[in-house]
């Protein structure tokens, strides 16, 4: 749903690195290089970021849409 705070296996803090990772990969950098750059060495932590899908963004779209409709209503 949202990026986990820590690595499931070893407990390293990875939550704060997600946004930078996602932005840099979207900008065209190689995922492996970004992970090395962020200092994520072990493969348990690397898979946390590599395999993550931020589903909460999709869910929040429903709420955004509902809010828009509420505003558009004349009464």
């Amino acid at each position: 749903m949202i990026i986990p705070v820590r690595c499931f296996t070893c407990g390293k803090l990875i939550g704060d690195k997600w946004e930078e990772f996602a932005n840099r990969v979207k900008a065209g950098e190689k995922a492996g290089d970004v992970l090395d750059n962020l200092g994520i060495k072990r493969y348990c932590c690397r898979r946390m970021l590599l395999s993550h899908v931020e589903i909460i963004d999709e869910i929040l779209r429903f709420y955004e849409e509902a809010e828009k409709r509420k505003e558009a209503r004349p009464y």
Partner: protein
Amino acid sequence: MSKLVEIEVLEKDDKNMRLLIRGVDVPYMNALRRTVIAEVPCMAIDEIVVIENSSTFQDEVIAHRLGLIPLKTDLEGYNLPEECPCKSEFGCNLCRVTLALDVESKEKTRTVYSGELESENPSIIPVSDTIPIIKLAKEQKLKLEAYARLGKGKNHAKWQPVSMCTHKYFPKIEISCKKCDGCGKCVEICPRKVLAKTGNRIEIRDLMACTLCQDCVETCPQNPPAVKITWEENAFIFALESTCVLSPEKIMTEAIKILDGQLKDLERQIKVKKSEKD
């Protein structure tokens, strides 16, 4: 252990530490490792009171996420709840820290970060300000109070001060110049690139990286093999990666103190049992 223990720091920064320890045995090293993981206390949010939550997450999910956020710990200023003189289920200001979170999304969807947690003690704060706690759409609100306590890794992984703590044998590589014909097969097969070929001779490039996998021994065409991998008796490489709640050297000294206390306690109990027999 009457021999002198030698410790050499191989590598150290604010998060990682690698030590070369000589003069201890396997049981002691393993006890130390387990003490670091399970017995060194650190701060984590343990209970929360949710006042308002209109977000997409259930209260439990938020509680779990908050619990996993590593908090900078002050071991001298706080007591473990079970050892605190207050004996209170709710804790006192010597064994509990209150953190508050009051966030609302007014305009558009936004992320709530760990930096928005307001702590009553400015030294007990999340190690990073940019851990996403939750995302809120417009008009969603989250208001809660969280109570952080000291705890031990054996009770919950959130109280573990390290994300990695290992020990391995110190490798010893012997290359026999007489038997080796410098074919270089051992250099190619080594996954950690421990060996290097210079001219017709095989040399050790990075001894510490050796994992004792014995691949080089198996691939050697000579019979018996020209390369021999063993490990030094009573020498270990001890590696530790902190989650930043405590500094690595603080974790180490604390672990040794705790282990010493436990051993003394055991000795005392044995003596009591003996005197009961007499």
